[in-house]
């Protein structure tokens, strides 16, 4: 858990954002290459490596999602690539609407916008779920909870991809719609 160590933290899934930021600033002041511009080449390299690690660590740990992903990876738990079965029906509908709108069928727009909204709400639910599971894990250190977190992260990745493609199509067709009306 190199990222946690670099910031002087125990490996927890829940972290206090203000504390994390303060630790990052304090260590940056200590290790930033700016402080070593007249030091030996070895010391400069060490400062560069330490700062790169600190930056990578802070970037990963400040976001609960990338933090959980990192945590699982360090525990040798791989995220799956399979579509979560409970979402299959919603996904099917969304893809239909996407295809129709891409093909110029404007009647699919409300349906797609509605689906985008539904998936957005789903994302919020997953995030709340993830926060709850993370806290539970930190309190109990119970391994099966990690499996639940894996499931939540899988769903999250899948849902955010769906939202992205929906937004892409919605925005693209709005733009081309403007052009053709001009």
């Amino acid at each position, binding site marked *: 858990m190199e990222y946690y160590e670099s910031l002087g933290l125990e490996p927890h899934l829940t972290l206090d954002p203000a504390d994390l930021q303060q630790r990052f*600033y304090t260590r*940056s*002041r200590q290790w*930033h*290459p*700016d*402080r070593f*511009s*007249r030091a030996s080449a070895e010391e400069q390299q060490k400062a*560069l490596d330490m*700062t*790169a*690690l600190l*930056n*990578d660590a*802070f*970037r990963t740990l400040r976001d609960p999602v990338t933090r959980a992903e990192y945590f699982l990876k360090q525990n040798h738990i791989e995220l799956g690539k399979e579509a979560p079965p409970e979402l299959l029906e919603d996904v099917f509908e969304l893809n239909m609407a996407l295809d129709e709108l891409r093909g110029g069928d404007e009647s699919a727009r409300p349906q797609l916008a509605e689906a985008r909204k539904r998936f957005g709400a789903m994302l919020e639910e997953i995030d709340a779920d993830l926060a709850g599971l993370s806290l539970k894990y930190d309190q109990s250190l119970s391994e099966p909870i990690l499996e639940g977190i894996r499931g939540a992260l899988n769903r999250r990745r899948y849902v955010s991809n769906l939202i992205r493609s929906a937004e892409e199509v919605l925005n693209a067709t709005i733009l081309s719609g403007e052009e053709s009306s001009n």
Partner: protein
Amino acid sequence: MSSFQIDFGNATPPAGPSKIVGIDLGTTNSLVAVMELTGPRILSGIVPSVVAVKPDGDVLAGAEAREMLLTHPERTIYSVKRLMGRGVEDVQPELKLFPFHVAPGSGSVLKVQLGEKTFTPPEVSAHILRKLKLDAEAALGVPVTQAVITVPAYFNDAQRQATKDAGRIAGLEVLRLVNEPTAAALAYGLDKRKEGIVAVYDFGGGTFDISILRLHDGIFEVLATNGDTHLGGDDIDNLLLHIALEDIQSEWGEDISTRSDAVQLLRRAVIEAKEQLSFAPAATIDLAYHGRRYQREVTRELFEQIILPVIDRTLGPCRRCIADAKVPIEDINEVVMVGGSTRIPLVRSAVEKLFRKRPHTELNPDEVVALGAAVQAGILAGEVVDQLLLDVTPLSLGIETMGGLVSKLIHRNSTIPASAIEQFTTAVDGQRNVLIHVVQGERELVKDCRSLARFDLKGLDPVPAGSARIEVRFLIDANGILSVTAKDVRTGKSVEQEVKPSYGLTDEQVEAMILESFEKAEADFKERQVREARVQADAMLGATEKAKQHEAFNSLSGDQRKAIQKAINELLVVYHHDNYLLIRAKIEQLDQATFALAEAIMNDAVRGALKGTQV
């Protein structure tokens, strides 16, 4: 003469600790500044970023070169920053708008033709940097060998590397490249605001940047940056120029766009009108050329209509930057304006509308970047200890994967230094090489991104396909420049690699240019020393001649008088020598010889003063 040395205007610089200078290497103008106890200070004046080759082959940079734009446009280059780190095919759109003369036979390295000579863009920039270096040395009286140079935040790896190369060619160790808006924030933060979120809108001669920073207890943390490295005041000039050229064609019945001297005169007239329009409701583009006159009044209303598309192009990057910074717009406490183009009222109102607050314009937009660079120089020198800059990489870094797709390794707006580790293996039994193609950009396909370099990992142990494990570490340093190291996981040994940068110079090419310029710098230095020694000799000889008229001269012994005459003669003999050390030695000798005379005159003066009479 010992006691009169102050009057002689001692030209020898006092020895002192060397200083790290801060340099704003701008598209239109450049500046050098230094950190002092009281704060950052600009050294010498603005240096136009123009380079010219005189008919006798000498190279000029700065104001003198700018004058040559009118007399010898084909021997002069401006806005070379637009060419930094770019390939021949990249600059084709630029060539339609700027009188760059690409040298025939420019291959992967772009070269411009100035008279009989050809230069790479870093070499042109090096001439500007060398001029700034000399100005700084003259102002400080100590040699200047280390510098912080600013670059547009949105500069890619190749553009940054080209800037660093320019510094090296000019004889400067570039300790750090700092992003221009970040430098501005540093100068601004020191002066005005200590805490909060600040947006810096930097619209210069040829580049546009927007950065959003969090200021906290001396830490300047860049949250996000965006921009366009080919958008600036130049583009506004070109729009006006285009209109004026068409006008002239219909008025005079002649197309003057192929006459470079006329175009340069007209460009100057257009810039004057543009600058006036920031203060006046109307201005006139006024061109006198070979007895003909063109005058065209432009109202501010028309001007704003013409330039609106250019200004609109800055707003997209602003919106993306705000989204990336993940701060609500109302949490941005202040907007700081940097760069000459922010003097245009329409720019100010567009920024005010977007950010919903009045932008800060009280800092001199031309100087604030150089001042910030000087602060960063102070940080590196250990003179400024409580400030720290945490900057980001403007563009995502990725590698080419199957099917021409990009796999992103380091995302844009990651704080730098930043790193990523990726494992590679071989696809064929006994494969000895792995080729990694690194690109920069936000798009999904390699062809839409900017190729950065190809790393050829060589000398792998021949093993069955898929069983090699090569760990490659990509590291972006604090300058925003990439380096790659690779090791064989099974043996732990580092893997040899050959780097082929897609644009720009190889290390060998830079070395050769440094060598050449070092010889030139050596010659420059000697020439300057000789000139200064002669100035000192003139002063010394003049003062001695005057002192000889003084009655005190008669009170000297015959030997003393002979010694003075001998020293004068010997100084005159070496005066035209090009060895400045010899001239200095003879000045010193004359100084010694006139010691007694100086003393006698002083005593006389004191006596005169005591008697209350004039000397």
